[in-house]
């Protein structure tokens, strides 16, 4: 009798722990984006994309024997390194297993160097595109689902050349992103024989850009290329340039592409052109379908990249069979690139199943993910033109 009782107790105990093990298993995913600051109108949608991936994985119940993904939002403020590192540290102390973020290049570099590398945390950024991040010492912990701006500079130069533009005035938002991108555009455009009449910085969040517009107008040029943010100085500069009749056509790099720009500026923006990271993948269409009923805008900039960034972290965990960053960091490139079964958005459950069975996947996701070099997107771009007050796709490059 005594033995029986002990056996039952032991059985109950093991069952109990097994039960607890199955349920208590939580994967915590930090979402570190600038919910306040210059891109605060983009980030709720980006976070929505990442949370969609997390919810999809949780619902499938196939991640590491039924682990649930808990997402934690934290504010990077986009331009405030202090806030961003504090938020990242908070995510770590709350037990985050991986960080989807950050968004703007400056804070991403700061968080990487001050928090992620010292603590061995994996970061996958959906939108930080500064060329400087390619060479930053990251111990193999940093990845991004967006290409480096060095690549975008070349594309922009090609787009300008193909449209017969010979001289440009260039203004950039005064931060790591704007500076890196404008340098890339200037070098690439001059390399193919174009002339850059002026390179002038503008500060975000000021509202009055008369001084910048005056200087840019004085320098002249066929097209004004605005390497800024569509919610911020970039919009102010374009508005000012149009109002004073300084420029009619604008070159719009990725930070300026969004539906709010033509809506805010009006019909005068028609004919302006630019490019944004994107590929003609099947995934993009599927993702657009998936996000139709969601409570965020799936067509907003970097939402697909955010979904992919979150998905990559979770898939790598599955491939490594562990939630420890040290274990799964090296798996991110494996799941992102071939060989293996191609995975589109909405198929995360299937991907987890394949990985659990020891198979290989080639994650395509919403943006046709292909990571190269130090773990950044290879860089296919969508050339866009503003037509009838909407962003329309010209072709893919």
């Amino acid at each position, binding site marked *: 009798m005594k033995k029986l009782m002990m056996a039952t107790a032991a059985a109950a105990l093991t069952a109990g722990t097994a039960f607890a093990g199955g349920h208590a298993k939580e994967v915590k995913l930090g979402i570190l984006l600038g919910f306040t600051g210059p891109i605060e109108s983009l980030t709720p949608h980006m976070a929505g994309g990442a949370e969609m991936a997390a919810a999809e994985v949780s619902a499938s119940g196939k991640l590491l024997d039924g682990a649930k993904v808990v997402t934690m939002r934290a504010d990077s403020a986009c331009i405030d390194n202090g806030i961003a590192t504090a938020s990242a540290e908070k995510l770590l102390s709350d037990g985050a297993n991986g960080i989807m973020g950050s968004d703007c290049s400056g804070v991403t570099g700061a968080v990487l160097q001050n928090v992620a590398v010292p603590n061995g945390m994996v970061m996958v950024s959906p939108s930080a595109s500064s060329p400087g991040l390619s060479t930053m010492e990251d111990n193999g912990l940093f990845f991004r689902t967006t290409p480096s701006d060095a690549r975008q500079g070349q594309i922009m130069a090609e787009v300008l050349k193909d449209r017969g533009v010979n001289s440009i005035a260039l203004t950039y938002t005064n931060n790591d992103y704007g500076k890196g991108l404008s340098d890339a555009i200037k070098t690439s455009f001059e390399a193919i024989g174009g002339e850059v009449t*002026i390179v002038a910085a503008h500060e975000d969040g000021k509202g009055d850009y*008369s001084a910048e517009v005056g200087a840019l107008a004085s*320098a002249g040029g066929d097209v004004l290329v605005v390497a800024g943010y569509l919610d911020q100085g970039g919009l102010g500069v374009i508005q000012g340039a149009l109002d004073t*009749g300084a420029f009619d056509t604008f070159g719009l790099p990725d930070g300026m592409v969004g539906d709010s720009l033509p809506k805010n500026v009006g019909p005068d923006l028609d004919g302006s052109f630019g490019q944004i990271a994107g590929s003609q993948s099947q995934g993009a269409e599927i993702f657009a379908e998936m996000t139709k009923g969601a409570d965020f805008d799936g067509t907003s900039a970097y939402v697909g990249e955010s979904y992919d960034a979150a998905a990559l972290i979770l898939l790598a965990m599955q491939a490594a069979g562990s939630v420890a960053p040290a274990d799964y960091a090296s798996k991110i490139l494996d799941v992102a690139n071939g060989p293996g079964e191609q995975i589109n958005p909405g198929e995360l459950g299937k991907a987890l199943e394949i990985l659990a069975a020891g198979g290989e996947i080639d994650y395509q996701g919403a943006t046709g993910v292909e990571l190269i070099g130090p773990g950044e997107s290879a860089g296919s771009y969508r050339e866009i033109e503003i037509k009838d007050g909407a962003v329309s796709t010209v072709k893919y490059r």
Partner: protein
Amino acid sequence: MDILNALVAFTNFVGVPAIAYGSQLALGALGVTLVYSVLRFSNFAHGDTMAFGTMITILVTWLFQSWGLSAGPLPTALLALPFGILATMALALVTDRTVYRFYRTQKAKPVVFVMVSLGVMFMMNGLVRFIIGPGDQRFSDGERFLISAREFKAMTGLREGLAIKTTQGITVITAVIVVAILFWFLNKTRTGKSMRAYSDNEDLALLSGINPERVVMYTWLIVATLATIAGVLYGLDKSFKPFTYFQLLLPIFAAAIVGGLGSPVGAIAGGFIIAFSEVTVTYAWKKVLTYIVPEALKPEGLVQLLSTDYKFAVSFTILVIVLLFKPTGLFKGKAV
């Protein structure tokens, strides 16, 4: 002809924008200076008071637009402006009753007031974002231009265009009217005089039977009016975004201090000095010079004194120089 072209280019890119921007800063700085002289502290919540007033005006504008009400060629927001002012007055009075009065009865030091206003600033900041959201709002309608660059070129046959936006015109006219009324009020009316007396010497004012609570109330009412008008004009001319209004605090304070804190004339002069220095010192003179100088001397470079990166450095350098040599500001305000 070339001289005319040069003049037009200069007016278009420097003159008109700087005058409009200067008027907006001057109205903002007037509010800051009034609080400083009567209530004796630097009100950091001023930028967000402007944002609040503008937000209410925008909401009422949308309501009017949905009713199909409009002011013809003028922006509908002008009709909605009185409602924005009333709401901001209510907010300012409530804030004063619940927050500032407590510290006033304790005779708290000015620095305590400044910190309190910082807290009020964050509260208002949150309130505005909570109601209207952090995004950009555009609410100007009606005619966009008094003269557009293209029309001007066709009209005059000059190579350079001159654009004056309706909002820029409205800004300058409104600013002139508001300033005229304010000065009349401060100098001619009984209440205005009692405000100035209270500002000059609180104890003497009390002895001569001035009711301090009334003076404080009138000050807040005027400040709320100025803040809302400045905010709406700025929003009409550029766009409304809570973050931008919060940042606007810096040039407004620079303007008020350069002119002399506590001096209304100084606030106006300061507003224009800051606006013109930001635009002029960083202007690239290439275009203007190309018209004026002979062909052979045509400038190769941009002829730009400082890159536009230094725009804010310029206004703060002026601020530092003024504080070093004339700590009371150009128009004899109070030393900070």
